[in-house]
């Protein structure tokens, strides 16, 4: 499990060197959220506030069970409620616990310009080291799931930590502990996939042919996975992306352009230096001065042509 020594990094934002990773012999973890077992009680949401000492401002009733209206700097997980009418004309209430997916290939980390402000531990957890965050909001642009939020008070970016502090001492995340129906499970990623497979089999036997696991390969898989009854249409669940991927625009911005541009600027400066020592400075000669003086003198002496 991730340890507070920070010697188990597999990724570190804005770093060109290998991060300290000697203590990286650990299992990858995952949280498995079985949407079909969730009753929307928000115990996980409360537990998250409780463990992390988060108190979002009390908002307004917006005509929905969703409360607050959106994720925020102090809302790291949020129950989202969607009403869906299925082919049989029956109403389905699709409830999803939204929050950071802890991507294997995290777009937030890729975009972040501050060295070490976002790290990924060997167990797969993506953590914001807020002390190093400069508040630029690049992680917001990098994330394919629209997760990080920047605080207006301290200008730092926040999101779910997967309770990295609890996990590092062998506890399960607070939301997992609080869930009364066992809809949230936590363990090694391999175990969670086995668990999911059993659940999916059960769901299929009960008529949900499209039941499946949400572990999107486009971001290398995630360390928060869902069991969905409609795995063919994840977007039914309050806009869970069907094919989440780091935007190609972000890829272009953070890709080969950067080293190329820095090299280009350095080359231009070096080129200028070599021009200086080969072609040399362009000096005004004494002849130039004499010619320049002559032009001015002649103009002075000249009778104005336009004068009568």
């Amino acid at each position, binding site marked *: 499990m991730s340890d507070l020594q920070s010697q188990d990094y597999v990724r570190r934002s804005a770093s060109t060197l290998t991060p300290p990773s000697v203590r990286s012999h650990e299992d990858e973890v995952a949280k498995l959220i079985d949407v079909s077992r969730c009753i929307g009680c928000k115990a996980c949401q409360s537990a998250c506030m409780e463990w992390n000492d988060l108190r979002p401002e009390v908002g307004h009733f917006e005509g929905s069970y969703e409360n607050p209206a959106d994720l925020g700097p102090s809302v790291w997980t949020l129950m989202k409620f969607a009403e869906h009418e299925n082919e049989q004309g029956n109403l389905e209430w699709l409830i999803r616990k939204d929050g950071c997916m802890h991507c294997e290939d995290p777009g937030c980390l890729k975009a972040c310009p501050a060295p070490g402000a976002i790290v990924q531990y060997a167990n797969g957890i993506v953590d914001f080291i807020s002390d190093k965050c400069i508040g630029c*909001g690049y992680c917001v*642009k990098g994330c394919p799931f629209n997760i990080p939020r920047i605080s207006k008070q301290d200008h730092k970016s926040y999101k779910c930590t997967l309770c990295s502090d609890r996990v590092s001492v062998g506890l399960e995340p607070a939301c997992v502990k609080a869930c009364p129906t066992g809809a949230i499970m936590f363990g090694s990623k391999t175990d969670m996939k086995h668990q999911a497979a059993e659940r999916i089999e059960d769901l299929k036997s009960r008529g949900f042919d499209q039941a499946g696991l949400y572990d999107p390969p486009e971001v290398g898989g995630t360390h928060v996975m869902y069991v969905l009854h409609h795995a063919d249409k994840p977007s039914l669940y309050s806009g869970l992306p069907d094919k989440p991927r780091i935007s190609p625009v972000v890829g272009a911005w953070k890709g080969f352009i950067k080293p190329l541009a*820095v090299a280009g600027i350095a080359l231009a400066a070096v080129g200028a230096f070599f021009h200086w020592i080969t072609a040399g*400075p362009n000096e005004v000669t004494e002849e130039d001065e*004499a010619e320049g003086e002559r032009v001015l003198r002649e103009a002075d002496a*000249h009778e104005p042509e336009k004068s009568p």
Partner: protein
Amino acid sequence: MTRPNNAITRYTAANRVNHWITALCFVLLTLSGLAMFHPMLFFLSGLFGGGQWMRAAHPWIGIVLMASYLGLIIQFWRENLVNRDDVAWMKSIRYVAVNDEEHVPPVGRNNAGQKMVFWSMTLLVPALFFSGLLIWEVYFGAATSIPVQRVAVLVHSLAAIAAILVWVVHVYAAIWIRHSVRAMTQGYVTPGWAWRHHRKWLWELASEQHDKAPPRKHP
């Protein structure tokens, strides 16, 4: 300021103050921008008191730059209009590069290179300004959608690189063509400098001088 008595004014005090405000802003923006642009340059954030201060200061300096550069556009656009001489000058660029002034056709107050710097920046500074506003998290983070901001940050990055390259050329040209810097610090050039680098401008000045010459000079 002591000037030789044959000095020709090239830039007025207003020109110069405006230019150096722009230059200062540009340098600060380049340093803070590059710190965010590449991890190996993040150490530059130390110049601004750390990452948070740098991130906060950059857009404000950008606003000053935009206002200041507008001043330069207003003061300099006329003399940067392109004409036939610019084509001729560009065709002789390889002689320009090796200081072979004999083979370079005479040009007016600005040559094609200077005009290119002016017009590139006239395009790039507003591009940086508007793309910069879109990615200004504190005030405009919620003003546009995330996909728009992704494009804006890419545009800002690319425009910044282009502007920095133009700036390198601009600064080197000022060092290379001796006594250009003095034109922008003390405001004057010598007749020989004007003859060598901007001969048509010198001719214009000479003819203006006798057109406008006060009567008492020609009794």
